[in-house]
């Protein structure tokens, strides 16, 4: 596969390095030194130039590229790159952004900015941290039908109230379809009596509200008690996002931020978080706020040195675990060596995510589940389709069993798929299809 990467910073170089063995990789960067470093360091074609310039992109062969990854440090440049590529090429585009606002827009209307897959560095880091804390979050959320429908993949945590219960028992969510259970790398299309177990991945398709509801009942944070005392030190973007993710799950985290303006801003954005305006490296203050009782401390200050100090101080005072966000990838090991339990580097996480996604997916599909065992795709029903003006229960008899109709949207509104639902020409269907049934399904529909 031919892959074009625009932006060869830490993220871009790291992706290039991990893909170079198996794919043809072309890298575009504006900085000649980086271009040189890549040319000699990796087996890739490096081109110097501005990636938002169509001529440069054409020189790099973007028409022939299967995947284009925009990974510069500037969100706007990345979106301009994908927008430009979208005008001349059918390549699958991946953009890395920092601002979650762009991600929200993209989730609401699929294909916005010409982006096919968007990764938010900060959100990804925040999600990794929340997972490290022990709260499962969706591994992957993809929008379909312009955001009316979402596909989400969750991992079932050990203490989930839904674990070891059958699909029939737990399927009380309005507008939600259980598309698959992935166990030991194999996708199972669930039937009523099938149980979900600890460690399974569950794929659900449905209305965004319902997906959210499912997420909260899969791992209810509402029962968060004193034992789930999370303290976030530093109101960076990642810190704010961690607070937001925890709030969504019913936690009431505390967040320490020294700048009065930023503290106010965070307090306004996060009603469920107690924001404290103080210097996090003041031991007396940490004592007063009972940091020794904290189960987890997340340190995410503006410099790695301060982050490290804050994390170690909190541990010294008595906090159980410390997670730190490290800006410089090379310090990750150092942090963990001196006593920080987990160090997370956002760029590294992003590069890993993009590389994983690129390796696992085939460019023409909409979303792919866990190591290529199944796919989720969306299409519009036309006259020729087996579904046209047919009840679902009749249509599916003609189709292989490895397929689930996840959702239907009609004129932009969600329709719950039931056996008696008649599918009309013009409806959009979101299907979950196992890999081996793929060809048959595509031919019939």
């Amino acid at each position, binding site marked *: 596969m031919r892959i074009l990467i625009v932006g060869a910073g830490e993220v871009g170089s790291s992706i290039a390095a991990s893909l170079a063995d198996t794919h043809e990789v072309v890298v575009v960067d504006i900085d000649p030194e980086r271009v040189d470093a890549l040319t000699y360091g990796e087996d890739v074609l490096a081109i110097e130039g501005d990636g938002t310039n169509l001529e440069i992109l054409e020189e790099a062969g973007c028409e022939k590229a299967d995947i284009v990854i925009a990974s510069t440090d500037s969100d706007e440049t990345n979106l301009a790159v994908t927008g430009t590529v979208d005008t001349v090429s059918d390549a699958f585009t991946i953009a890395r952004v920092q601002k979650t606002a762009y991600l929200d827009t993209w989730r609401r209307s699929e294909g916005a900015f010409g982006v096919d897959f968007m990764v938010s560095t900060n959100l990804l880091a925040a999600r990794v941290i929340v997972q490290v804390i022990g709260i499962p979050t969706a591994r992957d959320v993809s929008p379909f039908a312009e955001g009316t429908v979402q596909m989400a993949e969750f991992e079932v945590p050990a203490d989930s109230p839904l674990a070891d219960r059958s699909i029939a028992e737990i399927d009380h969510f309005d507008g939600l379809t259980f598309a698959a259970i992935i166990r030991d790398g194999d996708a199972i299309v669930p039937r009523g009596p099938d149980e979900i177990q600890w460690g399974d991945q569950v794929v659900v398709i449905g209305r965004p509200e319902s997906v959210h509801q499912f997420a909260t009942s899969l791992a209810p944070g509402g029962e968060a008690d004193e034992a789930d005392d999370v303290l976030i030190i530093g109101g960076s973007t990642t810190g704010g996002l961690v607070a937001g993710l925890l709030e969504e799950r019913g936690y009431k985290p505390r967040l320490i931020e020294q700048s*009065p303006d930023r503290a106010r801003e965070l307090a306004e954005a996060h009603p469920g978080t107690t924001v404290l*305006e103080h210097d996090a490296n003041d031991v007396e203050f940490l004592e007063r706020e009972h940091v020794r009782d904290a189960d987890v401390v997340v340190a995410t200050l503006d410099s790695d040195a301060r982050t490290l100090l804050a994390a170690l101080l909190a541990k010294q005072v008595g906090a159980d675990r410390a997670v730190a966000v490290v800006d410089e990838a090379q310090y990750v090991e150092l942090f963990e060596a001196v006593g920080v339990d987990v160090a997370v580097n956002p760029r590294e996480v992003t590069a890993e995510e993009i590389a994983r996604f690129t390796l696992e997916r085939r460019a023409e599909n909409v979303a792919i589940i866990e190591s290529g065992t199944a796919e989720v795709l969306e299409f519009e029903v036309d006259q020729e389709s087996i579904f046209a003006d047919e009840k679902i229960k009749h249509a599916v008899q003609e189709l292989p069993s490895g397929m689930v109709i996840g959702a239907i949207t009609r004129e932009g509104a969600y329709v719950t798929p039931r056996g008696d639902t008649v599918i009309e020409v013009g409806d959009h269907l979101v299907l979950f299809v196992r890999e081996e049934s793929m060809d048959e399904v595509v031919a019939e529909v």
Partner: protein
Amino acid sequence: MARIHVDWRASLALVGTVLKYLAVPLLFPLVLAIYYGDGLFPFAITIAVTVTAGFGLERLDHARDIGAREGFLMVASTWLFVSLVGAVPYVLAGWGTASTLAHPVNALFESMSGFTTTGATVMGEISTARHSRALLMWRQLTQWLGGMGIVVLAVAILPELSVGGAQLMDAEAPGPGIQKLTPRIAQTARALWGAYMGITALEIVLLYGLHLGGLAPNMTLYNAVAHGFTTMATGGFSPEARSIEAFSAAVQWLIIPFMMAAGTNFALFWHVLTGEPSRPLRDEEWRFYAGVLSVGTAIVAAVLFTDLGLRNVAAIGGPVAGSAEASFRHAAFQVVSIVTTTGYASMDFNAWSELGKLLLFVGMFVGGSAGSTGGAIKMVRWLIILKALRRELFTTVHPDAVTPIRLSGRPLDDRTLRGIYGFTLVYLLLFVAAVPVVLWLGYGGETLSVLEAGSAVAATIGNVGPGFGAIGPMNNYLGFPAPSKLLMVGLMWVGRLEVIPVLVVLTRAYWTS
């Protein structure tokens, strides 16, 4: 002499425009006077007076450049001038008769009480035998005009106010900050007035429907219109001397929800009508408002039912204590009437014990919602003050916590909070300062109790209307000496405009810096 930095000519010229248009509502009593063949001249002369005064003031300035400062002066003086003009028919109609309104101070009191939707009266005898039906209807109409606001109405219909309109409405509309519902301020003003007119019309139709259905023998078309005007304005004037006690229980039940609607933020009606029917339930102020009314009603109903609140007096239509329907109805009616600052009475609550009266007295300080026609301190301010107190307690435990105060999820900035503290403090200070003056001046030679004097001040500054004792719902303010009445005219004026726009005009800095 320092230079004056306020373009007072522009302000007064705009007041002139409003006065000129005041002739239009004056046509309504004029037509009634012709219909009933009684009391034509006072209105004809008043129309001449207001048109002349309007044109005269308009000549002061042609530019009409209204800034924030001119806005305050314009709004404050509009209410004063309009009340002066509104007093003219009372003086002229009473001239040479035994009417207490012939005295200019009384006429001004009645007129200010009308436009500010207070509902305190100095009419010695309220009856169609003593006053023409046209004059009594004018009294009702002044409240209806003042309810949603004269300046808001002017902004809605006068194109020349479209630019400075937001400033003007901000100075007049009740509550902290106006909500622009539409891109154009004139459209917002029209939406508010439209909702106001629509609900008033609905109430009139339903009241008259009760009459036609035989459930309200004395709710004639005249009375239906008269009470429609003053319910939706949270006014409280009635052409009946016994207020709503004069009507059947069905009428009393029907008026309760309309008083509640009048105390609701009218912007909410706009949202409900434009496709957001659940908006009030998400609005924190509305939920608080509904909660206060429910709890207040429940407490008072219990007090009435167990006879704790009554000094063994039966209301017209049977005893209240022991009757679940009657105690609930009278409790709900009085609580809603006082809290929304309407000032109607379904029974003489003077007959209640001190406990019942004390509950109503506290209610006088609560007030309707922001953006409603009700007066006093208002729900939203109390709600925010309660939240601020809770925050104080929290920050005592966590001195470094940053906890913005939210209203319906939206954080409020500290400026808004300071404004709310400031307003509430000034309001209470004015109350505390005025009570001794009223006590000292007495009531027609008699001494007043502190509760009576306090209720008179609270009822005028809060635009409620009736107080307790000598000025109870079936009595009047006539016995106060002229200086007291003028003080109360000032209180009603200051109270309707929410204190700050009037007080700011009285400061030196306003004029010179």
